[in-house]
C-alpha cells in the first residue's frame, strides 16, 4: 500500500492505493473526477523528494505527494 496526499487547493483527502509504479498510480488517479483535472499540471514527490520520471517504482509504505501549480510571495 502507498499513501497519496493532495496538496494545496486540490481538496481531496489522502488515499491508500495499491500501485508499484507512478504509471500504475497515474492510471488509478485518472479515474477520479476530482483529481484527474489536476494531473496534467501537478508535480510529484515521493517521501518528500521531487521525482521526474513516470517509470519510478513505488514500494510499500511510500508516501506520494501531488503538488498543483504554486504561487508563493
Amino acid at each position, binding site marked *: 500500500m502507498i499513501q497519496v496526499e493532495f*496538496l*494545496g*487547493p486540490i481538496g481531496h483527502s489522502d488515499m491508500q492505493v495499491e500501485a508499484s509504479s*507512478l504509471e500504475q*498510480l*497515474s492510471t488509478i*488517479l*485518472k479515474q477520479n473526477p476530482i483529481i484527474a483535472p489536476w*494531473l*496534467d*499540471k*501537478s*508535480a*510529484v*514527490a515521493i517521501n*518528500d*523528494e*521531487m*521525482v*521526474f*520520471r*513516470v517509470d519510478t517504482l513505488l514500494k510499500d509504505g511510500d508516501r506520494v*505527494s*501531488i*503538488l*498543483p*501549480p*504554486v*504561487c*508563493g*510571495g
Partner: protein
Amino acid sequence: MEIYEGSLDVKMIFGKWLDEQSHSNYGAFIPFVGTIRDEDDIDGLSFDIYEPILQKWFDGWVAKAKTQGAIVKMAHSRGDVAIHTSSYISAVFSPKRRIALELIDEFVEDFKANAPIWKYDLKNGKRIYAQERSTPMIGSGLLG
C-alpha cells in the same frame, strides 16, 4: 527559513537578520519584501505551505549561495494576510554587491516558480485559489 502564522513583522525580521550578521563581514545585504496589494477587491491573501519540500528547496539555495560565499534567508506567512501587510521576505548577504544583486533576482524568481506554496484570494468571506496566477512546478504533468 522562517514560517509565521499571518502577516510578517517586517521590521522585526529585518532587524533580526541584520543583528545576526552584524559581524559576518558581508558588504552587501539585499532583502526583498513582498506586500499584499489592494487590488481586485480582495481583503487579503491566504497561503498553504508544504514545509518539508519548501525546506529542501531552501536548503538547495543555501548550498548554492555558499558556493558564492553568500547566504540566503527567507520568511513566509501561512494562513491569512491582510492587504498592505507583508507575506514574504527573502534576502541575500554577500561579500560583494554584484553577487548579491544577481542572487536575489534568481532566488526570488525561483521561489515564485518552485516553492511549494499555494495562494488564495480572500474575497467576500471566501478563500479562492489564485489559479490563473499560479505556475506548475518543474516536472509537472508526470501523472497526466
